[in-house]
């Protein structure tokens, strides 16, 4: 697994006002779908029961979360969990059945068609799983499509598109047609198109699922790099836990349309709320995700407390060498306060075996 730094972003700090606030959003497909979210009786049913009772499919059920400015927020779930529907509800590509989606305090669901188009043109951009490129347009014209429909003059939009071409590493391909490019390069075009309009928020709908593993890794690193360079708020949909852990400041796990757990990667691995999440994170290399605060213990009377000091957010893998080299257990210290200690035993339990939580 490639190097990673989980502590990017404003985790743990007192959060500023969220960019996106999602409140009790429902999306129900089927006849008389509007009736479902309001009825406590129907809400209590499982998906299959609801299907049998009403013929409706509840794709998204009572989902709520906040995304902070500059954060990479990942929504993760298996296929059919409703994650793709959820991200489409945010910009009303799919009209939500009930709930609230606030963007900088403005209710998107209340926006009229004109305002909605303005938001889509200036505030949000989306990257799609199957790229959604226009086969009859060259790369450059694909990238400038969003500017074109806003009415930006040709020279201006070409200039802007060329900038983005540079940014995503497509230089030299701007005159090609999409079907002359590999999948990875096509998705770079999709990314560039999303960036061209300089949106506040980037939405990714499983953008790398259709790519080969090696190219997928390149593209993930590309997203990390872009996030560092342009600092946009990103909402990222994936079914791949490794991808979620690699990219996400925080991760939301969805199942059958509902939120199961929201938290940072180490929270999910260290404190799964139920068996579903536990099962999910079972094969994660824990040493790469857990931080010291998850494995430290209270000092016992016989412990020697003159070992080196480390912060609670240091990843286990990075602390391993220090802990094993030290003669005494490492002290976990935050703001001068001793939180606990980590000895060889604790480290080895994580590094060598996965049975710590069993």
């Amino acid at each position, binding site marked *: 697994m490639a190097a990673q730094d989980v502590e990017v972003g404003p985790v743990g700090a007192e959060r500023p006002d969220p960019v996106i606030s999602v409140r009790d959003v429902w999306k129900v497909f089927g006849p008389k779908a509007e009736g479902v979210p309001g009825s406590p009786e129907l809400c209590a049913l499982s998906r299959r029961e609801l299907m049998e009772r009403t013929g409706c499919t509840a794709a998204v059920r009572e989902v709520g979360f906040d995304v902070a400015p500059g954060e990479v927020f990942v929504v993760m779930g298996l296929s059919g969990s409703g994650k793709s529907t959820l991200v489409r509800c945010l910009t009303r590509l799919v009209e939500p059945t009930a709930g609230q989606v606030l963007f900088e305090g403005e209710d998107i669901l209340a926006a009229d068609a004109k305002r909605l188009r303005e938001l889509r043109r200036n505030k949000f951009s989306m990257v799609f799983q199957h790229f959604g490129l226009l086969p009859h347009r060259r790369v450059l014209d694909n990238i400038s499509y969003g500017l074109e429909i806003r009415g930006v003059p040709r020279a201006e939009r070409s200039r802007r598109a060329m900038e983005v071409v540079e940014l995503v590493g497509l230089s030299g391909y701007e005159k090609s047609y999409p079907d002359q490019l590999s999948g990875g390069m096509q998705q770079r075009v999709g990314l560039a198109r999303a960036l061209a*309009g300089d949106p506040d928020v980037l939405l990714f709908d499983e953008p790398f699922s259709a790519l080969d593993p090696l190219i997928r890794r390149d593209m993930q690193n590309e997203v990390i790099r872009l996030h560092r360079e342009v600092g946009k708020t990103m909402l990222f949909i994936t079914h791949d836990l490794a991808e979620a852990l690699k990219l996400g400041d925080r991760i939301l796990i969805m199942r059958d349309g509902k939120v199961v757990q929201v938290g940072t990667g180490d929270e999910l691995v260290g404190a799964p709320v139920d068996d579903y999440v536990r099962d999910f994170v079972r094969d994660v290399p824990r040493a790469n995700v857990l931080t010291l605060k998850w494995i430290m213990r209270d000092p016992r009377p016989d412990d020697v407390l003159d070992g080196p000091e480390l912060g609670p957010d240091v990843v286990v893998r990075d602390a391993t060498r220090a802990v094993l080299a030290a003669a005494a257990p490492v002290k976990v210290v935050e703001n001068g306060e001793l939180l606990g200690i980590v000895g060889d035993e604790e480290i080895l339990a994580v590094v060598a075996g996965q049975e710590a939580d069993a």
Partner: protein
Amino acid sequence: MAAVALSKVDLRRPGRGAVVALVLALWLVLWALLKGLHTLALGPAQLTPLHQAVNDLNDSIGASRNTNPLFLYFFNEIRLVIDEFVTFIQSLIAQPAFGRPLPLIGWLGVVALAAFVSYAAGGFRVALLAAAGFTFLGLQGLWEESMDTLALTLAAVVIALLFGIPIGIWAGLSDRFNRVITPVLDFMQTMPTFVYLAPLTLFFLIGPASATIATLVYAAPPAIRLTAYGIRNVPGDTVEASASLGATDGQTLRKVLLPTAKRTIIVGINQTMMAALSMVTIAALIDAPGLGKTVIKALQTLDVGTAFNAGLAIVVLAIVLDRVTTAAGDRVDRARLTRRPWAARARQGGLIGGGVLTLVAVWLSYTYVWAAEFPPDVEVGSSIAKGVTTATDWVQSNLSGITNGVKDVVTLVLVDPLQSLLTGSPWWLVAAVVVALSVVLGGIRAAIGSAVCLGLLVATGLWQDSMATLASTLVATAVVMVIGVAVGVWMGRSPGADRVIRPVLDAAQTMPAFVYLVPFLALFAASRFTAIVAAVVFAAPVAVKIVADGVRAVSPTTVEAATASGSSTWQTITKVQLPMARQALVLATNQGLVYVLSMVVVGGLVGAGALGYDVVAGFSQGQLYGKGLAAGLAIVVLGVLLDRLTRAAAARSGRS
């Protein structure tokens, strides 16, 4: 026997097969006993009250055409507008107009225009083809006739696209409208082409307006369907991407949907054009000007040479129109694959230079007689006709042993017994058998449908003619299916065979139905057999393609598994591929029937007799008008009956 093609569907189920066999056996016994009773025969000149009533209706409509407000303000207006439009195009390229002895644009101008348009739409090679093809039309001595056909075709295509593409876009965008329009299009396309000629003449008179309307009814569906299909097939991601960037619906339509679907829409235009050409030649039956008229006149006098010459002109026109529109479609793909800047510059130069040359040619052809009227002394048409006549005479006098042998065997062994069974049985016996078979094969609802159709057949007063046509249709369909399965399986199993045969089938399908008659008329003279062969040749390509696609669609893993368990080739075909392609076989039978039926009237021109003859006679003789209309209706009813029955049988066997 009536259910040869139908029962094939279900032979796998022994119970049902046995019942079918029992019904057929019972029929044979009763036929032997009751032969000649209640056959509802009607002589060629005899009329029923219904036919008389239609004649009277025709007369009264004719009398009130200029007084009845419905005609004054609706039908006559439509007729006038279309007539004006057609006359306008004709006056440009085909007919003397504006006080001139010749059309506005003479042959040189038309050839240059055709080449230039082909160059702009397709490229240099099709431009050469178009120029050569059009010049050849002139050399054949058929310039004016060809231009009439072209004018009528273009008029119909323009109107068909004017309505068809917006309707197609609507159907592509709206699921609800698509559900409404699809059965309408199915109906427009399954109805045998001749059938709506007659009712149209009732409202729009015999002439170009009726011909154009009939043509556009027949030709518009492919444009509508393929436009809708193209728009529906734009990937959802692409449309969503456009919406997510804040495009309005109009922007998404103009910048995403239409450009992405362009290729498919051009294929639709191509099919519309070919259908229009085919129908325009057939519309000669209601006095549409052009090559079709030449062919019909020649067919009626059995002048194979002249018919061949005119048929060849239709083929040439078809090839040029097909290649140009196909090349236009390919251009959409090709244009963006060339990244060489000089190619674009060369093309731009070519367009400007070609445009100037074309203008000069048009001006010359407007001004000088030599460029306006195709020189009559460089003519090859009559030598073609003479050569073909000589060859035909030779074939008929020297090969008659072989051709008559084939003809007699098929006629005596297949057609005659079936026809005598169908026409010789009492009508109620045939009806009972068909209803019984419908129950067995399709269930009660199918049986009710069949009963209604049979009742209508009796009501048309043309029961016996219908049965004779049914006999020929069933024989032709059986032959089509034999060819379809044999060639289709071969193509489905061998990519090499597919590569060679498919283009031939494609070409055969773009040819107007008329053209097929000519060579078979030369070989077999006018007879029922000739009509059957022409129908088989017309219908076989469709059936072959459907079977081939069905066989190809069988999962290769299943075939591999069969091979791995030691099946011989024959076993693999009969036990795996054909059963798994059963739906395709049923569809092929269904389409084969529809195509064969649509050739019934054309067959009527060359001695098929029965309903086909009734329709043709109805167009030419006033007192038979009502009978012809009833015969057209009987063909539709037969078509609906067979179509519904095969579909019901297919649905049933598909469920089991």
